[in-house]
């Protein structure tokens, strides 16, 4: 493999990883607050893909992007209200099962509404323009994805660490009842988590599907699972962890495909999960327990 092809694959991998990272953040944040693996998250990402298909056909793309993000946020919050909120005081397993149900519901709803045939994903001419840096060439989206990911993560981290709302989120993630005693409305904080997670999934979906060119009702399933693995790999509950996990999986996957092992690239991701859980169950950046009694 020449240096150019190596760098070319690196670029592709980093770009794919960026999209994964954005989705993985949604898993890790919801887990941080609710201790719930939101299995429907990958399907929210898929629905965002369909939203884009329909939005672009009736409006210019910059407006369509905004509409897709808003639509995905509404979907994410609605799912939380309908499927998770009523189970707030139930055992955790019940919410988990509800999440799995919601995942299948969305897949089947999409099949029913849009049929299982792949739909062409709209091309945004600007994002598809080919750029050349030295010997490397790629479409703009490949360059934009990692930059945008890093920017969004920086914004997100500063919201969480330096604003009042972020402080409330950190408090709620540790102790529901005491947060309530401070006057924090738990449900608002949870909704806010779903707003952020869904918005990032919408952005991730635009970046991901622009490179893939088609959407099916099952397009969210495998990327969803991989991003879940990314979140676990980085240490579920940790946002920087999810980002590192996302990039790691994106790069590994791309190189396996490049080396001719594309059949094994998905299996490798899950192998990584098993090895990680065996060696370091809390993940790379997993929560350290600082409680002192």
């Amino acid at each position, binding site marked *: 493999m020449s240096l150019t092809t190596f760098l070319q694959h690196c670029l592709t991998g980093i770009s794919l990883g960026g999209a994964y990272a954005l989705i993985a953040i949604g898993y890790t944040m919801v887990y941080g607050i609710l201790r719930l693996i939101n299995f429907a998250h990958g399907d929210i990402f898929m629905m965002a893909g369909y939203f884009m298909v329909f939005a672009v056909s009736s409006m210019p793309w910059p407006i369509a992007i905004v509409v897709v993000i808003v639509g995905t946020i509404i979907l994410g919050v609605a799912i939380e209200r309908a499927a998770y909120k009523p189970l707030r005081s139930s055992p955790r397993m019940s919410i988990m099962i509800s999440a799995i149900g919601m995942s299948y519901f969305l897949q089947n709803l999409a099949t029913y509404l849009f049929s299982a045939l792949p739909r062409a994903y709209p091309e945004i001419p600007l994002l598809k323009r080919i750029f050349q840096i030295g010997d490397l060439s790629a479409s703009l989206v490949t360059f934009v994805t990692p930059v945008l990911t890093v920017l969004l993560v920086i914004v997100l981290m500063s919201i969480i660490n330096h604003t*009042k709302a972020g*402080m*409330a989120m*950190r*408090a709620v*993630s*540790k*102790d529901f*009842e*005491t*947060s*309530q*005693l*401070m*006057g*924090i*409305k738990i449900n608002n904080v949870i909704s806010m988590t779903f707003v952020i997670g869904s918005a990032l999934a919408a952005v991730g979906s635009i970046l991901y599907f622009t490179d893939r060119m088609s959407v099916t009702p099952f397009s969210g399933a495998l990327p969803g699972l991989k991003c879940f693995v990314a979140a676990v790999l980085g240490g579920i509950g940790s946002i920087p962890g999810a980002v590192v996990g996302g990039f790691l999986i994106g790069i590994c996957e791309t190189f396996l495909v490049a080396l001719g092992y594309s059949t094994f690239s998905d299996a490798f991701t899950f192998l990584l999960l098993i090895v990680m859980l065996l060696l370091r169950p809390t993940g790379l950046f997993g929560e350290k327990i*600082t*409680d*002192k*009694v």
Partner: protein
Amino acid sequence: MSMLEIKDLKVNYGGIEALKGISFRVEEGEIVTLIGANGAGKSTTLRAIMRVVTSGGGSIFFEGEEITSMDTQKIVNKGIVLVPEGRRVFPNLTVLENLKIGAYLRADQAGIDKDIEHVYSLFPRLKERHWQMAGTLSGGEQQMLAVGRALMAKPRLIMMDEPSLGLAPLVVKDIFSIIRRIHDEGVTVLLIEQNANAALKIANRGYVMETGRVTLTGTGEELLNDQSVREAYLGKSK
């Protein structure tokens, strides 16, 4: 009109009657204490007042207004705060952030800054450690932080659930002198304690609770000298 009035309050926990209809009142400017053994329903009473558990009957009035089914957020806004049992500081927030989150419902930044300084003057240790994660503080420091955090809401009534639990005797003494000082600054105090002796000494009035009922009431002095209280809670016979 009493500041806080509880009438026939009942609470059920999954089929178990934790409170079987208790009534008591707290007048403005008093220190009132609820004493009783483990499982008597003292913590449940405070949690029902804050509405983090739902009551199964009875009513709660604060300054003449019924707050029985109000949101916790509104109750905090009315001026009632609870320092929960076991301190429950947010271990993943710094000391300063814990204080700020106590003022979550307030918007007067200048007032908040002033009150942070005030809490620091009550507890100089917190100022020294304001940048530390609260989870790394000692038990006594965490208790101070929990009290300081509650004061940040500018309460009119502060309720404390076992503030001396698990603390060294010297620290317990500190905590009680702080309670007195908060009271001197004009905050009404409702105190739950297993350390009945210390609690009754600083309290104007006290109520004795047994298995979900109030069984005895009187001034702090009266209860300290009451034969049955002395035997049951103060460990002194005769």
